[in-house]
């Protein structure tokens, strides 16, 4: 166990846990956009930047700005500030830059407003832009879904999230995990003519209907994928959530 001071609170932390993990445990709030507990940290959005001071041998602190989400606690006596004036100034600047990129993304606007940033001094290239290139969608697709259908493509100004060749991808099963996890709602899903469309990746997948109620149960490709992964029997995987729950409940009661 290491001694840690975070915003003046003295605490103990296991070695190698991140500042963000410790803060969560202690109820210290640090804003994040590109972080999700179930996915490898990436440190892309920078809004979780905090001040960390490592005590040197002469007793002085060497203070640095670090991203809380991927900074592992390794030093005894580390002093962390999540709300110092320097941290707040830094965070306001980051939010201002994000706001310049996505002037109309609700999540960004709200978070910026929380820190008193209502307008960005920097010019906006595209007022429609909502993607902050945090890569959560590509990480969930790779790590959780296991499909890697999309990736960050290009460099600098041209960086984007795309399916290969910006064309409908064979690998995308239209599960929608990317849209679910996107912090800014940049990924749009629509249902049209019995198909689920993810516009950003040009995906279009047939929706399957529930065998019992006839409502949409989900994209066929997704149900097929789940069936294979979980080795589900045919009459279970082709049901919608509600019917599946009812059916399993009945079976459970009958078997009890």
């Amino acid at each position: 166990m290491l001694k840690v001071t975070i915003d003046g609170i003295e605490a103990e932390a296991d070695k190698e846990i991140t500042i963000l993990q410790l803060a969560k445990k202690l109820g210290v709030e640090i804003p994040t956009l590109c972080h999700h507990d179930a996915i490898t940290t990436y440190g892309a959005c920078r809004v979780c930047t905090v001040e960390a001071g490592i005590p040197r041998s002469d007793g002085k602190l060497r203070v640095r700005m670090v991203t809380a989400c991927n900074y592992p606690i390794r030093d005894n006596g580390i002093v962390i500030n999540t709300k110092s004036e320097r941290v707040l100034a830094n965070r306001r600047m980051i939010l201002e830059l994000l706001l310049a990129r996505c002037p109309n993304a609700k999540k960004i606007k709200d978070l910026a407003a929380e820190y008193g940033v209502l307008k960005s001094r920097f010019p906006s290239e595209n007022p429609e832009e909502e993607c902050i290139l945090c890569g959560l969608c590509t990480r969930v697709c790779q790590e959780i879904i296991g499909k890697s259908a999309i990736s960050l493509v290009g460099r600098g100004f041209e960086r984007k999230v795309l399916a290969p060749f910006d064309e409908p991808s064979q690998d995308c099963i239209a599960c929608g995990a990317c849209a679910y996890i996107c912090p800014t709602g940049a990924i749009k899903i629509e249902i049209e003519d019995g198909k689920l469309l993810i516009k950003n990746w040009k995906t279009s997948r047939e929706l399957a209907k529930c065998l019992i109620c006839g409502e949409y149960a989900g994209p066929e490709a997704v149900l097929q994928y789940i069936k294979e992964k979980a080795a589900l029997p045919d009459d279970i995987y082709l049901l919608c959530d509600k019917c599946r729950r009812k059916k399993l409940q009945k079976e459970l009661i009958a078997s009890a």
Partner: protein
Amino acid sequence: MEDKKAREILEHYKYEQNQLIHILQDIQTEYRYLPRETLSFVSRELKIPLSRVYSVGNFYNAFSLKPKGRHLISVCLGTACHVRGGKRISEEIERVLNVKSGGTTPDQEYTLETVNCVGACALGPVIVVDGKYHGQMTSAKAKKLLSAMKDSGGNGKNGKNKKS
């Protein structure tokens, strides 16, 4: 589709995933660009998701997803070349070849690109033609160089015919 040349390259690197960049470099040298089908083939054979192969192919300047011409002309626009008129030279070549920077002539002979320093600032302004450095360039000299290339380009074509 079986891609013989790509197969040879993959075999040379023993299908190792971490050799992806080397493999793509060899494919780039072989085809002068990274053909789509070849990228899909590499992705299947190496068991690397296509999205990853695509993003590597897209990231580095050394790779091109569009076919490049037989001759590559790089005009240096690094600081030293820029102040000595590199821009004028690239504009002159654009005019002569009738192709924008970054583009390739329709006959697939020339690709023109601008680069941000070739490490020969003392020679500036520099243009690099097929790996050969030409220093103290002027628009007039560039024009001459191009017409000389076009003349010998005829020979080059003959040479190409001989090969095929």
